[in-house]
């Protein structure tokens, strides 16, 4: 891009501050040349219209002995004659205690309006160059810090080892950088969290960044389609669907019509986990199983989703039937569910497992129930074998353990 165009666009139109380093990086020119471009631009624009563009300058050289105003100074007492110090231990004669006079050079940043004043503080000036141009005078020079930081973030993908020469950086022949992963880029915008971001190689990312706009919506649909492909549970593919499901989960749950042909990742998971169980679970449940079998798959999906949401909402692992009147405790269909999140390459998640729990009811009977609880798991450990359907075994003598058990189970639920 033409330098003048770039500057006109950024400084005059966008009213941004351009430093010689951001210019050098943007146009891939030598820093020294960038300084000259800025100077030229500043001069030309102000010739057209005075004060339309302001600049800051770097002055380097040796300052007069006066203290520069901004360094909260300490008396520049290098030359001060040392008084006999009370701190000197007598056993420590100091042969050369007087501090040496030390050459003090300064590199000072000044606004264009202060340039002459600033120059006056120098005893000898070795160089002056433009540091930045901006449309108006900067009230606070520290604002330039932000420009510098933006620059480093914006051009972070340029490898300094390759581009340094172009920018005019001092080269080092001996630099040792570990090969392998390139240093991670400064946090990319979180909005386009893509599954690809887990890929260790950063090279393609750089390309993506420029194309990120059109691609934004793509990953989601990608994940959905691939999730769909794993709709029928197949063990090896499971991991993949989990991975995507975790991304899908990050999004707010979309109210999905039951007819939707593409189940979201979660539904896939549920489906996957629950289908077989339901078949073997429901026979125990006298009144429910036939209807469940009759239910269409979609209805089941919807119900399971609802169930899932309920679970998530109140944290209770299962829903209990409040059938206080039924003499036998209704065996609850227990789903083994998994929620998986991907953290730093390791998959963590929780899964619902059946645990035996023994409670003593008010009459002193021991009631053992199987309850679904959540436990954390990682991908490495194999999923525990799926338990047999939850059957309440009311152990104890006496006539009516069941009824009391069911009440207990209702209140005992957490």
């Amino acid at each position, binding site marked *: 891009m033409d*330098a003048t165009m770039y500057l006109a666009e950024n400084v005059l139109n966008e009213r941004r501050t351009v430093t010689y*380093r951001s210019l050098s990086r943007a146009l891939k020119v*030598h820093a*020294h040349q960038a300084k*000259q471009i800025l*100077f030229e631009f*500043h001069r030309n624009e102000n010739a057209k219209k005075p004060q339309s563009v302001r600049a800051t300058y*770097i002055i380097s050289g040796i300052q007069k002995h006066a203290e*520069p105003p901004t*360094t*909260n100074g*300490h008396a520049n007492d290098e030359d001060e004659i040392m008084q006999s*110090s*009370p*701190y000197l*231990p*007598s*056993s*420590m004669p100091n042969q*050369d205690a007087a*501090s*040496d006079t*030390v*050459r*003090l*050079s*300064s*590199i*000072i*940043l*000044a*606004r264009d309006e*202060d340039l002459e*004043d*600033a120059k006056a503080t120098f005893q000898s000036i*070795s*160089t*002056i*160059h*433009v540091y930045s141009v901006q449309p108006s005078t900067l009230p606070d020079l*520290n*604002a*330039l*810090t932000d420009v*510098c930081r933006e620059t480093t973030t914006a051009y972070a993908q340029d490898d*300094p080892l390759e581009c*340094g020469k172009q920018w005019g*950086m*001092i*080269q*080092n*022949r*001996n*630099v*040792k*950088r*570990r090969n392998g992963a390139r*240093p*991670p880029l*400064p946090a990319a915008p979180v909005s386009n969290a893509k599954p690809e971001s887990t890929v260790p190689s950063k090279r393609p990312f750089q390309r993506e960044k420029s194309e990120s706009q059109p691609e934004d919506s793509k990953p989601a649909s990608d994940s959905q389609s691939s999730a769909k492909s794993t709709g029928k549970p197949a063990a090896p593919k499971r991991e993949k669907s989990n991975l995507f499901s975790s991304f899908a989960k990050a999004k707010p749950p979309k109210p999905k019509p039951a007819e939707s042909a593409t189940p979201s990742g979660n539904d896939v998971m549920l489906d996957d986990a629950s289908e077989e169980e339901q078949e073997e679970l429901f026979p125990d449940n006298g009144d429910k199983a036939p209807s469940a079998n009759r239910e269409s798959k979609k209805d089941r999906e919807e119900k399971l989703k609802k169930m899932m949401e309920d679970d998530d909402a109140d944290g209770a692992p299962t829903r209990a039937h409040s059938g206080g009147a039924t003499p036998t405790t209704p065996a609850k269909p227990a789903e083994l569910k998994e929620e998986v999140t991907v953290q730093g390459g390791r998959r963590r998640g929780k899964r619902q497992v059946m645990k035996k729990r023994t409670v003593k009811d008010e009459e002193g009977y021991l009631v053992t129930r199987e309850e679904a609880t959540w436990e954390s798991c990682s991908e490495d450990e194999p999923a525990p074998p799926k338990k047999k359907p939850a059957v309440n075994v009311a152990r104890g003598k006496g006539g009516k353990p069941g009824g009391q058990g069911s009440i207990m189970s209702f209140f005992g639920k957490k």
Partner: protein
Amino acid sequence: MATTEDYGFLRPPSNDEYEPVYRNPSSYHPLHTFRLPMGSDRHYQQQYGDMYFLRLARLKPAVEQVATAAWGELTIAGEHARRVDRVLDVRQGELCWMTGTVYMDMPLKPNILDDLTKENFTSAPPPRRTYADPSDPSATQIMMEDESGRVLLTGNLLSSTQLATGAIIAALGTETSNGEFEVIDIKVPDLARQPQRWERGEAASADSKKDDKEASNGQGKIAFVSGLGITGSSSDTLALELLTDYLLGYTGIDGSEDASKITRLIIAGNSLGASVTAEAASAGTDNAAKKKLAPKKYGYDASAYNSSPITQLDNFLAEILPSIPVTLMPGEQDPANVSLPQQGIHRAMLPRARAYCAPPPSGDNKEEDVGWFDSVTNPWEGDVEGWRLWGCSGQNVDDVLRYLDFPADDSGPSIERDDSEARLRIMEAMLRWRCSVPTAPDTIWSYPFQTVDPFVLETCPHIFFTGNQPSFKTTVIEAVVPPRLDGDTDMTDSAGESSATSVRLLSIPKFRDTGELILVDTESLEVEVIRFGTFAGQEEKK
């Protein structure tokens, strides 16, 4: 705008080809004196007393040698100065000298026993300017201690001599009628043996030494900076950006040639701003009650932890590392352990700069590579360009300063007095005590070393630097010429290598306050300062 001179840059762009500038290579051999054992080998159950015994055992011979040379033949009023082995063997009224560890009891010194009895040991004691009570100077007691016991020291000499807990000295005097030891004279171990330049390269391999020497022929400079104080906010000084530009050669005093001579940057602590940890600490104590109410959160909590300072530090390092090797020491404000020796800032906190680290040590590979970016301990010692460097981020000097007796005619406690001269004296005293952190473990938190006291200076460095000081100071000290029996003190150069010992002391200012970068020439050890700043012009005056 018509300028008479264009300085090369105040002119229209030219199509000049700029020759690439190459930085001089750096010869760098760090020592791992202060590296603590890893993991389960690091124990904190030991007694601190062992450190004092180790120190005394190590330094006693050195002091006694000096003292014997000075007092061996000494006779006062017909009485021969007798050497006493243990401080409790001193006889009343008898002229003698003895060796031991100084212990100073000061009214405001934090006392772990007091803290325990008052049960206020849970939080760190508030930092004090001095441990002495200015209203009652006599409350300060100086004692000498060895394996056998303690004896109280008195005498006019002590009021003019500054000592600190942990220093090993020899004292000449007599015991008075009330059991105190009246000191007439004091001797210290004085500077340790100083290695020759390039000494360690020789030990490693003759080839590498030769390479190093050849590589760094010609002029080079070592850059020191401390107290970058990055807070991550936009109120950070622009000076850091100017420093980056300078180190990378974009902005130079005489083009980029002068910056290209800088072979290494040493960052001596406190790279992060005070607000980061100070706020957290104050929040921990003041709002303890408030915090209890808040639900407990584990892991990353963006509301309680601000990652921006360390990110900015990482960016700064990643920016300069392609061009210049960096040695990073932690300081008291940095995310490292508090007790000395602080271990290096973990590379995981610097994800971008990490690529320039040495590869992580693999189990069987004992021969560790030195990283281009080296996150080292504090204190740290090592060889740079053949010179032995010893540096600390400033805790050692700050703490010894608290032991010093400020003159009564001081300008008042509110005004920050210029104690930079005193700080330089302390640094010198440390070298002469051969003890770099004398007040550890008494008033500086320290790892309880069992087998070796690394704070004893076994060898005398060529450059002894301290970071985070209020202002820049430098001086050169030389070893005391040992009094020769033949009275020939002029021929110092022929007296052996110890007489040639000279040390460059550097008190490195806080960059955040002063904007100063210290450059040390690798041939002459001459020092120069580059100051980065902004010119406060009309805008600030409004």
